């Protein structure tokens, strides 16, 4: 198998050598893999589009000793909205970084592939940070890490109160009896309820959800905290999300498609 085919999304693309790019691809069949795209920083390269971040393409890859090489890339979708909208691009970056951090090379996760592709498409019209949050919680679910948001993760009891203790180590919210020595943070009950919506509602109905910036900030911070603890890695692009200064009202309502 020296040449193989991959239906994949570029989740990371770094300059490499004189004119190459080192790609991290997430493919439907093989999961995460790395490949060199040669000469793609030269304007005449035909492979250029297939080497750009977020591109979804059919790849023909050549198996190498240390690194695989892109022989051919036929883009299926380049998601122009991730190029010309800062917040949408930042959200997609957050999703791609999380996917990279959460997965190991060579382990197929077709469900994650579909989730990522769906997320990138939905970013065209939906509130970008809503999609980013829903994506992260669903990724956790698919990988078997999903946080318990209904009842105490330890004893299963109903947890009451306006602020509830949320602990990645415990696997979700914990009641006051079970809190014990668990590390974690306090999260408003309303934020946890919102996270349940992000996790269980149909992806394409997420646009009916409404949040304001303080609810958004807490939901994303709690989700980031949970992911970072579970995967034991910092999520650098999540920490930079305040670079985006788009107001939530700029997005998320069905009536304000931007053109």
């Amino acid at each position, binding site marked *: 198998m020296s040449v193989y085919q991959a239906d994949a999304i570029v989740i990371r*693309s770094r300059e490499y050598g004189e004119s190459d790019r080192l790609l991290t691809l997430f493919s439907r069949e093989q999961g995460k893999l790395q490949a060199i795209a040669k000469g793609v920083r030269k304007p005449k390269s035909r492979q250029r589009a297939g080497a750009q971040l977020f591109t979804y393409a059919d790849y023909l890859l050549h198996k190498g000793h240390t690194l695989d090489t892109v022989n051919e890339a036929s*883009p299926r979708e380049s998601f122009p909205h991730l190029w010309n909208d*800062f917040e949408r691009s*930042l959200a997609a*970056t957050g999703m791609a970084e999380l996917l990279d951090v959460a997965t190991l090379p060579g382990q197929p996760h077709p469900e994650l592939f579909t989730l990522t592709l769906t997320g990138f498409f939905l970013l065209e019209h939906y509130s970008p940070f809503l999609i980013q949050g829903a994506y992260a919680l669903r990724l956790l679910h698919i990988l078997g890490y999903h946080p318990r948001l209904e009842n105490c993760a330890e004893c299963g009891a109903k947890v009451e109160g306006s602020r509830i203790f949320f602990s990645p180590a415990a696997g979700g919210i914990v009641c006051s009896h079970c809190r014990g020595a668990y590390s974690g943070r306090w999260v408003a009950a309303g934020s946890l309820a919102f996270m349940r919506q992000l996790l269980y509602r149909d992806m394409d109905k997420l646009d009916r959800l409404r949040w304001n910036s303080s609810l958004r900030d807490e939901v994303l911070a709690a989700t980031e905290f949970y992911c970072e603890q579970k995967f034991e890695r910092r999520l*650098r692009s999540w920490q930079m999300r305040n*670079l985006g200064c788009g107001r939530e009202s700029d997005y998320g309502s069905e009536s304000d498609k931007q053109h």
Partner: protein
Amino acid sequence: MNFLSYPRPLADLITALSRLPGIGPKTAGRLAFYLLQEPEAAEALAQSIRAAKEEIRQCSLCCNFTDSDPCALCQSDQRDHSLLCVVEQPRDVAALEKTGEYKGLYHVLHGTLSPMEGIGPDQLRIKELLGRLEGVKEVVMAVNPTVEGETTALYLSRLLKPMGILVTRIAHGLPVGGDLEYADEVTIARALEGRRQL
């Protein structure tokens, strides 16, 4: 790696060379042996590396590499000081200057926003850009046509527009000599955006 069995200084040299962009361990080994066999070339190289490192710094205005501060371009009265062209790397200034078409000044960011790699505004020369806008009427974004380049331009234009500065972008489109049918949709969309009257 096996070159670690070499005498320490040689192994160090190979390691240092292999850290250079585009040079793998094999090439690094070849270069190291060449330098040992050609002491004069080695001495000349060592001297020019040292001289460049000592004499070249970043211009306090445009952040391009220079041996005088401000650099010759920033000091020139032949250039239009109300026009700034933002580029990613010093080598981009050289590329634009080669055309002889551009008469304004430059600003070198030394990279693009790349949140995944931990590169935010503080890692780029954005503060320096914001500090030199007096008398500037137009800022031209000449970033690379990549997601990171585009989002950096979007970010900057958001900072600059409220200051009443005209923010423009060089047209991105089809490469000269390229066939339309081989171009991807983003390229074609950009080319259409940048169309002009004939």
